[in-house]
């Protein structure tokens, strides 16, 4: 096969890009250095969240949420998506004022999906919440899904549409010659196409660096916990306003706790280690707001490697350094929800050279002049 587009990175964003490109009738090859969904795409918290996002991300997240509500139409699988709502809890009157200001900012920008709830309403929505919580901010149409299952559903749909996926093929060299990208891989294979898509996640800056484009991408190994199965006590996904926490209960009763505490990752080996002190801190935060957890056992804790940028929003757009290269990486721990919409955006960039979605704030060269970002998000729980 001589592909029209080569996608580098077989995570959710790579699979979604491949799906949308293939459905537009183009030949697309995905090169993945490990396995599909090796890192963040299977180890994220699976939050399908518009709540609290950076204003630049809101239009994309709202569009993507609409796709989540009919995800089976897109990929033939419901991805275990449940519309549960997401709620950000205020633990002090000051935090509640912060949430009120956020809702007002969002309304002024023309969005109405975040709604302040008072203490009585909070208690109705979250009967198990600790008594000190004073209110919250809710996005009722939000929910969660299972990340690995979702990524594999996108993979199957992409393959059914004609995409070819090659695992164990890490790109070790690339060169642009005569309007074509020529690639060499760790498995000895060589490939060429006029257009490249960089969905390499935490490894995305390495690819950019190899064509002379420096993007200040770091990475984090975001830790998460599952407790033993408990009787149902919480429906929405819960975050806090002043402390990192993301909290949800699966249908099986297991409670997932994340929110941004970091272990230690290694980009060269792909390995991660837990930081027990931070894990304990995360457990205590969860226990503070849901005392019912004192009866639980921790049964699993893990970490996934995710790309992070200084302004906590991703890089999305055409490379300004070289022709025929589209970047979509560095989702900073909240790219899962954007997966469905991103594939369409990347397909437009790769095939048409432009998109109708507002991606200017995500420009790959935005870091050059030290521009400060405005429209900051609320404290964003990873996932």
């Amino acid at each position, binding site marked *: 096969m001589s592909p029209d587009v080569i996608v580098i990175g077989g995570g959710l964003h790579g699979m979604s890009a491949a799906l949308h490109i293939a459905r537009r009738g183009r030949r697309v090859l995905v090169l993945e250095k490990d396995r599909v969904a090796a890192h963040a795409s299977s180890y994220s918290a699976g939050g399908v969240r518009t709540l609290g996002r950076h204003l630049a991300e809101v239009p994309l997240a709202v569009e993507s949420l609409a796709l989540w509500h009919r995800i089976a139409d897109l990929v033939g699988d419901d991805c275990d998506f449940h519309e549960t709502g997401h709620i950000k809890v205020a633990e002090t009157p000051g935090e509640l004022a912060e949430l009120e200001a956020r809702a007002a900012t969002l309304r002024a920008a023309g969005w109405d999906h975040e709604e302040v709830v008072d203490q009585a309403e909070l208690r109705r929505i979250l009967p198990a919440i600790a008594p000190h919580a004073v209110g919250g901010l809710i996005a009722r149409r939000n929910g969660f899904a299972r990340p690995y299952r979702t990524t594999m559903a996108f993979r199957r749909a992409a393959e059914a549409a004609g995409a070819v996926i090659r695992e164990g093929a890490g790109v*070790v060299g690339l060169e642009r010659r005569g309007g074509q990208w020529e690639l060499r891989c760790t498995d000895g294979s060589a490939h060429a196409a006029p257009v490249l898509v960089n969905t390499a996640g935490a490894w995305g800056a390495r690819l950019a660096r190899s064509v002379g484009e420096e993007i200040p991408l*770091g990475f984090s190994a975001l830790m998460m916990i599952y407790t033993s199965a408990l009787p149902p006590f919480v429906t929405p996904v819960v975050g806090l306003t002043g402390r990192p926490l993301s909290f949800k209960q699966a249908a099986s009763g*297991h409670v997932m706790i994340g929110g941004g505490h970091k272990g230690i990752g290694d980009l060269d080996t792909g390995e991660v280690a837990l930081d027990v002190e931070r894990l304990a801190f995360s457990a205590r935060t969860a226990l503070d707001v849901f005392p019912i957890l004192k009866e639980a056992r921790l049964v699993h804790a893990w970490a996934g490697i995710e790309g992070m940028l200084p302004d906590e929003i991703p890089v999305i757009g055409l490379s300004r350094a070289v022709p025929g290269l589209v970047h979509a990486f560095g989702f900073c721990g909240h790219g899962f929800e954007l997966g469905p919409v991103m594939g369409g955006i990347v397909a437009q960039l790769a095939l048409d050279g432009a998109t109708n979605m507002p991606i200017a704030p995500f420009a790959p060269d935005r870091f050059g002049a030290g521009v400060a970002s405005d429209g900051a998000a609320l404290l964003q729980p990873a996932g």
Partner: protein
Amino acid sequence: MRAVIIGAGPAGRAAAALLPEARVVTRPAETAWHAEPGRIWIEGAAGVAAVEFSRLLLAADEPLLLMALGCRFEAGRPVVDEAGQTTRPGIFAAGAILGAADAEEAARQGAIAARALAGLPPDGRIAASPRPLPAAERLDPLAVAQLLEEEPGPDRSARALAQAELRGARLTSLVAPARPVGFAALAAMAPASLAPCGTQADEGVLG
């Protein structure tokens, strides 16, 4: 030297007899929950506590502890030298974790590893017996949690090892604590505050 022995079956008892100074972790009073190089966390009646070690002997079938320590596995067993030392210096394995056929063999291995751990010349040779692993589909974290919630034993160990093996040559570790632990006991270990933890930097290149 601060030596810790996990397990008080035949291998652990034989090792403890030769290493009277060693701290022996014995179920059910104490359970080794998780480990990192130089430290192991033990859950007991009073909660969870970290125990420092410079030498460790794992004499119980807890493969996840060795994985957390970065020890390499092959054929369902930690890779060990003739003295039972894993691929991580100072970390040894003997007995059930290596598939010792019976109590006598486990005790023999425990004694060999204990001597080596104490820096004495070897007094016999240790070899691991392969552990057949079940065929497995990759599980996501929720399904892994459900697996880890099952009764610890050979079946759980084999299925966890099969998951780790699926993660392939570049993803050698199934990062997970070896045993469930009390959530409140873990929370009680939290420091009053944490220093902020920035993102890790990367200057790497392709390849």
